[in-house]
């Protein structure tokens, strides 16, 4: 009986701070007036990408030469391209490729950068300062897009290879950011207390330090995703990303450049899709920063 009474009591004791914390986070997120619209648009793009086969009005690969280069109409809201394909359908399917490149390349960079940054910042020493930091310095000295292009040159064009090329470009930034965060945490009382209690280094790093640096990492990851989408579109624009006939926002712009005078809509919509998606992710990232890492707030 006593136990039965104790459990709700515990819940009552624990619940208010937890819900209060969530409410506080939500309040901070909402304070940034553009964060919510950003989040809603990101959600819509994700949903469009996920449910593309049901949403897209036409097959994105279906060519119809009789309908080539038609402007926006009731049948084709964003018009058609030089091969008579529906631009809206290609944009909806293109969202899949763009978003997956952004998420996978940043995910891969996090997968490599997070543990290296954690270990490097936690142990410090010669290995960290002489080897890891100098290697990241070297990678960061090479302009990101030039490094990605060079990687694409050796690996060859394609979606998977573009993801690898971009993740190689992002990894050093994550290593440095995670390391800097760990350096600021490692001397704090809670880490010293965990050490005094006999916790292993691995446990301290992943169970104690990692949750405390998660905020800035999430913020950085969201902003990196926006950069990755632009970079992938850049690679596709140059012909090194997703290969035709697969729909991609960047390559759509490349082909549109040949028809600027007779079919400008071919250039309007793919670029607008990249712009709106990246802007929304940046707005969301700004909101997340205000929510999770208020010290980094601009003003």
């Amino acid at each position, binding site marked *: 009986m006593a136990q039965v009474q104790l459990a709700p009591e515990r819940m009552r004791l624990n619940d208010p701070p937890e819900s209060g914390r969530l409410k506080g986070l939500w309040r901070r997120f909402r304070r940034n007036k*553009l964060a919510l619209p950003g989040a809603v648009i990101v959600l819509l793009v994700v949903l469009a990408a996920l449910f593309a086969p049901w949403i897209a009005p036409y097959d994105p690969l279906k060519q119809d030469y009789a309908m080539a280069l038609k402007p926006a109409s009731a049948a084709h809201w964003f018009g058609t391209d030089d091969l008579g394909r529906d631009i809206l359908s290609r944009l909806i399917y293109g969202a899949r490729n763009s978003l997956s490149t952004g998420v996978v390349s940043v995910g891969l960079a996090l997968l490599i950068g997070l543990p290296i940054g954690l270990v490097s910042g936690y142990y410090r020493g010669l290995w960290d300062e002489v080897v890891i930091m*100098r*290697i990241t*310095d*070297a*990678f*960061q*000295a*090479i*302009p*990101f*897009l*030039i*490094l990605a*292009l*060079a*990687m*694409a*040159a*050796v*690996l*060859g064009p394609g979606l998977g290879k573009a993801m690898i090329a971009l993740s190689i470009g992002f990894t050093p930034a994550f290593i440095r950011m995670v390391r800097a965060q760990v350096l600021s945490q490692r001397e704090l009382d809670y880490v010293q207390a965990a050490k005094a209690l006999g916790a292993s280094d691995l446990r301290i790093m992943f169970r104690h330090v990692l949750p405390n640096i998660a905020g800035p990492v999430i913020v950085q990851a969201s902003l990196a995703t*926006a950069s990755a989408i*632009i970079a992938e*579109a*850049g690679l596709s*624009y*140059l*012909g*090194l990303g997703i290969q035709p006939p697969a729909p991609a926002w*960047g390559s759509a*712009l490349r082909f*549109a*450049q040949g028809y*600027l*005078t007779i079919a*400008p809509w071919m*250039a309007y919509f*793919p*670029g*607008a899709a*990249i*712009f709106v998606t*990246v*802007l929304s992710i*940046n*707005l969301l990232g*700004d909101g997340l920063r205000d929510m999770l890492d208020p010290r980094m707030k*601009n*003003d």
Partner: protein
Amino acid sequence: MLVFLVRRVALMVPILLLVSIIAFSLIHLIPGDPALVILGPEAPRETVEALRIQLGLDRPLPVQYASWLGAAVQGDLGRSLVDRQPVAKLIRQRLPATAELAVLTFLLSILIAVPIGIYTSVRRGGLADWIGSVAALAGQSIPHFWLGIMLIMLFSLQWKLLPASGYVPLWVNAKANLLSMILPAFATGAREAAVTTRYLRASLLEVLKQDYVRTARAKGLAERVVVMRHAVRNALIPVITSSGLQIAALLGGLVITETIFTIPGFGRLIVDAIFQRDIPVVQGAVLFAALMVMCVNLMVDVVYSTVDPRIKLSGGRG
């Protein structure tokens, strides 16, 4: 100053060595036999073997690297596989256009960012601040290659005010050169301007809270003098650092801009080399790009140390 410079250059050496390893490794990252991949599966066996020897692939890896690095240190980055020209010469030929575009882009971004950054921070919380901040975020999110295409449509095709392509060297016709550079510089500079605006606004808001600004106001100085003479000068210090960091992004951005506007620059050289699988050119370009970024960062450090008297040159930043 000399001690600072020597120390700073000495710090660059190990990083450049690591960059050289990355650049050198590129050819070995090609899946399979690099010579066969470069020439294609149809290439005769003798040609493939000749290329392997030319690229030094028949020698042990450390020997290949030592020989490549030894030549690179003396300015020999190998020869292009396509037109047999020395890579260093190709880079030298393409550099003026890129350097000019980079400088124009940088100047344009400063011209846009500084007034907006100052105005939005002084009018913090107002409509102008909101519009400026949203515009800065939009500028940061806009793909510059799309902006470039939109500018071509508007200014070249519709209004016929500026050329869409057709680079003319500065020393051949200065006016035609500047006209051909406006759109590319704006397309690339919009993002740089947006980033600088955000940095300057944040920095200026921080500075405006400082005691010495309050003192200046208490002395009865006009707000314009307080902001322009006292606050902005200090607020620009972190902006200088951020500009240095942006140079890498700017160089990357120029690769695509030069492709859109058909400018025969360094970026175009890289793109062409990639499509032709001209690996020695790609290797040389990567090494050279990193060297440029590091040199600009060194210059920024020197400027930073000169502008901020709190930094002692001999001890680096402190």
